[in-house]
């Protein structure tokens, strides 16, 4: 019996918790974040451990609803719920939290979170093209640098930032290479495996180890020989962030006979093409340039997401697109119209789903996804 190539990633979170505890005991600081806009390079350069924080499970939502409105994005409620009930070990170990003003819900939630831990909120501009936006974002990264230096009592040197940039660039190009392996048919990784790898890695305390694990996985997958011709519909999932605990759409799609071959969302492909340009003289400007390119729906306009989707549809030989919006996420919900237009222009079936973290709508999701697979030729 051969070991599953992604087994290490299944246990990554648990293993990481123990390691973080050991490192905390040695006096190393931990900085938690929720979003891909957080420049983790600065945290690494400060000698601290950057970790993702929990926000992809339903359990703590009811606790969050004691403070937050019900009709709010489940990701925000789950994140806050984990924090307020102290059930996210990564939040528990975090000395500091970094947030961003990506959406109104998060921005206002962070104000409440301040009561629990020191939270630094970065002002993210949402119009990419203007020079003022860029300058603002550069200044925000500088402000984060100062805040981290003061709160962690360290000096963050340019040299340390460049080193961190190198590591993050390397990690990202490896994950991209792994995701790209799914361009072949049948894909070496199922959608759930893909999610496990790309989502779990952000919880690892040791970037060098993540890089080793990814390199190992890439080598093992590269020898994968498709043993049969695939008859499965190749599905691209786009939209709001998905993690383990909220993988219901991926799970249902695969149970119904589809293959989710690519994920264009935050922990997935969305940021994978973006490398920090090391030709800049100032590492902060280099970071600002990279992070501002992330095609989140909070950006207006957001043409890069559509370009990326178009390319992914081609490269991953997509048969149909599922666009998942979490309840009350206005920006992804509205942008769904543009995505629909794009996908239909390509002559492919498109399904927009609006859901939350609960299991109440499994049956109605199922019939819609099943119908989409039938539209894509699976009948």
């Amino acid at each position, binding site marked *: 019996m051969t070991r599953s190539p992604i087994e290490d990633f299944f246990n990554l979170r648990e293993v990481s918790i123990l390691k973080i505890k050991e490192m905390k005991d040695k006096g190393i600081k931990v900085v938690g974040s929720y979003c891909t806009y957080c420049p983790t390079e600065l945290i690494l350069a400060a000698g601290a451990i950057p970790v993702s924080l929990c926000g992809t499970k339903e359990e703590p939502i009811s606790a969050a609803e004691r403070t937050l409105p019900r009709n709010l994005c489940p990701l925000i409620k789950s994140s806050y719920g984990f924090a307020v009930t102290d059930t996210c070990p990564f939040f528990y170990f975090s000395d500091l939290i970094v947030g961003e003003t990506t959406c109104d819900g998060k921005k206002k939630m962070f104000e409440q979170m301040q009561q629990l831990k020191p939270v630094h909120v970065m002002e993210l501009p949402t119009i990419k093209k203007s020079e003022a936006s860029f300058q603002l974002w550069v200044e925000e990264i500088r402000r984060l640098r100062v805040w981290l230096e003061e709160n962690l009592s360290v000096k963050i040197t340019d040299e340390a930032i460049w080193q961190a940039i190198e590591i993050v660039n390397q990690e990202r190009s490896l994950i991209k290479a792994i995701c790209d392996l799914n361009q072949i048919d049948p894909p070496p990784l199922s959608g759930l495996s893909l999610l496990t790898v790309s989502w779990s890695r952000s919880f690892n305390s040791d970037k060098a180890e993540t890089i080793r694990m990814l390199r190992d996985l890439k080598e093992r997958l590269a020898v994968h020989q498709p043993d049969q011709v695939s008859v499965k519909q190749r599905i691209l999932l786009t939209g709001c962030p998905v993690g383990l605990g909220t993988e219901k759409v991926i799970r249902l799609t695969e149970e119904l006979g589809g293959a989710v071959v690519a994920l264009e969302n935050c922990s997935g492909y969305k940021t994978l093409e973006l490398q920090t340009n090391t030709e800049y003289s100032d590492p902060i400007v280099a970071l600002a340039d990279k992070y501002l390119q992330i095609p989140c729906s909070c950006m207006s306009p957001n043409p890069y997401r559509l370009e990326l989707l178009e390319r992914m549809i081609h490269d991953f030989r997509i048969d149909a697109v599922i666009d998942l919006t979490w309840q009350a996420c206005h920006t992804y919900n509205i942008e769904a119209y543009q995505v629909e237009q794009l996908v239909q222009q390509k002559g492919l079936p498109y399904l927009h789903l609006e859901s939350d973290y609960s299991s109440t709508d499994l049956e109605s999701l199922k*019939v*819609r996804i099943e119908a989409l697979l*039938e539209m894509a030729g699976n009948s």
Partner: protein
Amino acid sequence: MLAVGIDVGSISTKVVVIDGNKISHLIKPTGWSPRQVGLESYQEILEREGYNQNQVGYIVGTGYGRISLPFVHKVVTEITCHGRGASFLQPQTQLVIDVGGQDSKVIKIDRQGKVQNFIMNDKCAAGTGRFLQVMAATLGLEVSELAELGKLGELRSPQGDGAGSPLVINSMCTVFAESEVIGLLAQGVDKASIVAALHCSIAKRVAAMAKRIGVEGPVTFTGGVARNEGIRAKLEQELNVPVIVPPECQFAGALGAALIGQEILLRKRALH
């Protein structure tokens, strides 16, 4: 060889048998056991038409109870089946509106009846047959009486409240709409006007879904609710295109399922 389609809906179960050019159908209430009623209605139609089970070449199950039919060869969603069935009944149609017991859907199809796009109502009973059932019960009426009474209300409601404007039910939620109806009854508003307003409420809700998909050409209206002429007329008014209800409107899903079964049989035969 016979092709059979079985559509187990939340309220009624429909069976269609295709025997060459002969199409027979049967409908009965689903009740509490979709599994049992599915099998029973299948056996019943075979017996009634004088077929035996050995003649059956392919069975396709559809509808919400499709997973509870162990004897079918294939399961296909009601979306794909309704598209196929409606296209057979109305070959010109490119848009199908199906309002069934627990959901309503709008399906865009091509000339072959293949689904191009679809939209379904959200998680609640608004704009479905269940909504009508609950309202009929509140009014002490049978669902089958609604259409006739609604027509009366149509004539009356412009002057119904004396102010010249038609009566409106504001709530989409079945529970809140029921409270609203109870309130109107308490105010002494006549049942006919309330029924007309309820028809209007469903039609508006369903029309909004259709407009989201894009309305082109004549629309085929299927499902149990399509038998209600008041809703059909309101829908036509809202959409501004002819809304056609085929006589077999309740069988579109089962028919589509049987057609898919027949196609599979033909394909198999061609291979041999």
